[in-house]
């Protein structure tokens, strides 16, 4: 950001720290609080560490709008949220305290159902219908892609169910990991096959 050719006298300013980390933290917190109070914090986010890696959590004023695995590339996910929802995006953990708490409980095996406001605005049409039906599959249970297609009102849309699950913007909380193949194998997963096995094993152990 500084001029490439050094101006005469520029050394005078070398005494000033380029980054005052403590001040930046303090000012960032203050900005988050002011933006939240004014209602212009359109997307708040934070990350949580879990047995399936770091999860990015993002919420609008309406509710949890996105959960993303590290393999989805959190920076890319945040850029996509800026495009699709609003560029007013801040790292603001407080709005996600309840979500982080329930996710912690879930991975500790103490929570079998999430009780959180969800914002499904990133999904439309049939995909959205599929996702809203997924919560009908109880903890520790699984359903086949075909069964979910039938429940969503279109028994022939098995592949569409697969793509709805693959594009689930709120994995873990909206349990697309409970949808498996008719032959009993786990099938694909937005968090990778290993994450799907971890979640199914966690729920089976209960």
């Amino acid at each position: 950001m500084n001029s490439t050719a050094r101006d005469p006298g520029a050394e005078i300013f070398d005494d000033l720290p380029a980054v005052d980390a403590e001040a930046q933290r303090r000012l960032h917190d203050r900005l988050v609080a002011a933006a939240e109070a004014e209602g212009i914090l359109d997307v708040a986010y934070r990350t949580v560490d879990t047995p399936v890696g770091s999860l990015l959590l993002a919420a609008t004023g309406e509710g949890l709008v996105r959960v993303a695995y590290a393999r989805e590339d959190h920076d890319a996910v945040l850029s996509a949220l800026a495009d699709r929802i609003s560029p007013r995006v801040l790292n603001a953990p407080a709005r996600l305290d309840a979500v982080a708490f329930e996710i912690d409980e879930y991975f500790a095996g103490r929570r079998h159902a999430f009780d959180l406001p969800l914002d499904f605005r990133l999904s439309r049409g049939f995909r959205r219908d599929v996702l809203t039906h997924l919560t009908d599959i109880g903890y520790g249970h699984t359903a086949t892609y075909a069964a979910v297609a039938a429940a969503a009102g279109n028994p022939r849309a098995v592949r569409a169910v697969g793509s709805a699950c693959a594009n689930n913007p709120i994995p873990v909380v909206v349990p697309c990991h409970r949808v498996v193949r008719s032959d009993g194998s786990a099938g694909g997963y937005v968090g990778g096959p290993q994450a799907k096995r971890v979640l199914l094993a966690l729920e089976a152990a209960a």
Partner: protein
Amino acid sequence: MRLAPFEQIVAAYGPTVLRVCRAVLGPEDADDAWSETFLAAMRAYPELRPGSNVEAWLVTIAKRKAIDQHRARTRRPVPMDDLPESTPGSVQSDGSFRDAELWEALKALPRKQREALAYHYLAGLPYATVAELLGNNEAAARRAAADGIKRLRTTYSATHKGEPR
């Protein structure tokens, strides 16, 4: 080109804007100016044309906020010069401004010189942009910065020669 998440704007430009606010207003008032600058920027951000010079945009807002603060303060009964002195010890203790002496030296400069230095030397803006901010022309902006540096060399650099950082 699309707009990046605002968090990235804060991370990329927050430190520079803070340095500019500290240089123009002093360490005590810099936090308020920074906060108002970024809140106003976040408000307007969705309408920013993608590809804009974000740094110049932020410094323009910061300048406006600095003027507002200056006006608010001159309306107060206590004149500017009677504000509590920023002593190196007190300011250093919270790490917010390592070199209060530099600020003392900057404060003694005419405002235009101080701003020219902040916008060019700290924000890295070209003199053409500095001139727009100061409402003069490039030559005048350049001269204001040169005069400011000349003055700082006598008031500030002299006291700092050979001192360990």
